[in-house]
């Protein structure tokens, strides 16, 4: 994600906005007519894979699915480089999800067609960051945003890339997490170097009146040695109907999904809930990235 300048990010977001009526099924498009997109998913994924499939089909393209890893040549010991060389002769673009960090960069060295990183390893998931930014832009605003990020900020890759991308727009950030899952200090230092105001706390209640967007993430039980501590944190970092009683009507709540306990279902019906809309925005964003990568839109 760090490879993108603000101008380039804005360009992708503008393109997604143009394509949104197509994503909704209101307009038809043949932009990817005759094009084949290969989806190579070496890890389970629902939203990312399906939204890439929908994005391709809404633009009139066709999808080639790797299918299960167990049934593929990978099980025969083929390396990723060879798989990419072969598939890039079959398709016009490859979307790759792979458990190893940097696999998409490597794939692009061996591929004769563009490669989109659909999430590699535990660090990068750029299309998620694009759709998070798009959601914020559509539902709130990007410039000088006051945002809280809550939950597992230590291991959550979505928040790390989002912080960096938002810093290009001059945001004010509050990190809400228990100390064992706090934002890595090198990221905080980096943000401060870029003159971003950063505050850290462990209570959502304390800051909910001060922000325009809350980006929730899932806190996983296995991150805690002490199960009691997990139970305490789980309750302290939960968005409930009562927590939202006196907040500004424009407060928006985002979540990359899947959620478990961190947002109570009572919030879903409030105007604050944006997470399902956010999941939809994955379609126009991926349409934009596919169209731009294949050079069918300028």
């Amino acid at each position, binding site marked *: 994600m*760090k490879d993108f300048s603000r101008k380039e990010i804005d360009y992708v977001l503008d393109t997604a906005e143009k394509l949104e009526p197509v994503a909704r099924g209101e307009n038809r498009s043949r932009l990817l007519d005759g094009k084949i997109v290969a989806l190579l998913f070496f890890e389970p994924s629902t939203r990312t894979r399906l939204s890439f499939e929908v994005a391709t089909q809404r633009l009139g393209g066709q999808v080639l699915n790797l299918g299960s890893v167990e049934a593929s040549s990978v099980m025969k010991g083929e*390396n*990723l*480089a060879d798989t990419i060389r072969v598939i890039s002769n079959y398709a016009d673009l490859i979307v790759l999800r*792979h*458990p*190893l*960090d*940097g*696999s998409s*960069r*490597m794939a692009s*060295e061996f591929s004769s067609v563009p490669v989109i990183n659909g999430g*590699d*390893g*535990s*660090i*990068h998931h750029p299309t998620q960051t694009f759709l998070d930014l798009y959601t914020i832009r559509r539902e709130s605003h990007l410039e000088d945003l006051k945002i809280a990020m809550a939950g597992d900020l230590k291991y959550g890759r979505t928040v790390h890339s989002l912080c960096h991308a938002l810093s290009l727009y001059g945001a004010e950030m509050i990190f809400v997490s228990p100390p064992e899952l706090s934002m890595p200090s090198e990221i905080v230092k980096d943000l401060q170097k870029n003159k971003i105001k950063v505050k850290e706390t462990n209570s959502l209640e304390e800051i909910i009146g001060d922000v325009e967007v809350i980006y929730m993430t899932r806190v996983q039980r296995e991150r805690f040695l002490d199960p009691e501590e997990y139970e305490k944190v789980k309750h302290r970092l939960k968005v409930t109907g009562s927590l939202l009683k006196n907040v500004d009507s424009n407060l928006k709540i985002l979540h990359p999904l899947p959620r478990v306990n961190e947002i109570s279902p009572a919030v879903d019906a409030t105007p604050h809930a944006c997470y399902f809309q956010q999941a939809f925005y994955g379609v126009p964003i991926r349409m934009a990235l596919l169209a731009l990568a294949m050079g069918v839109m300028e």
Partner: protein
Amino acid sequence: MKEKRDLKVQAIENGTVIDHIKAGQALNVLRILGISSAFRATISFVMNAPGARGKKDVVKVEGKELNVEELNRIALISPRATINIIRDFEVFQKNNVLLPSYVEGVVRCINLNCISNSSEPIKSKFSVLQSEEEGVILNCLYCEHAILEYIAENLL
């Protein structure tokens, strides 16, 4: 006294002398240059030799002028090392090592989950930066992980 010193590091007729290596790093310098038992030239080295600026290591390679690009890799682990090209017992050329901006296949990425640590047919690749606060920093061009220390421990 002088005689004893000469025995430690004999002058060479032709070749390369790498001087002012950070004390204790001579073996890593050989590794970084890819010098192994298959190397045909005569190599001699001294570790922890007393120098004007404290202890240092010295490596001498006889009969071979090493490639500057390879020699500059030494800056990763010993930025103050100097390279002396010797011709006919005289110092023909003397240079400080220059930190390269990019290295390939020299250092292992410390992120165990990086694709460059898998069995894929690729070499590790890093961009190299020098920071006043943190010294030499290597950034993996695959996974973007930064190596701030333990560079010598992660030589390939």
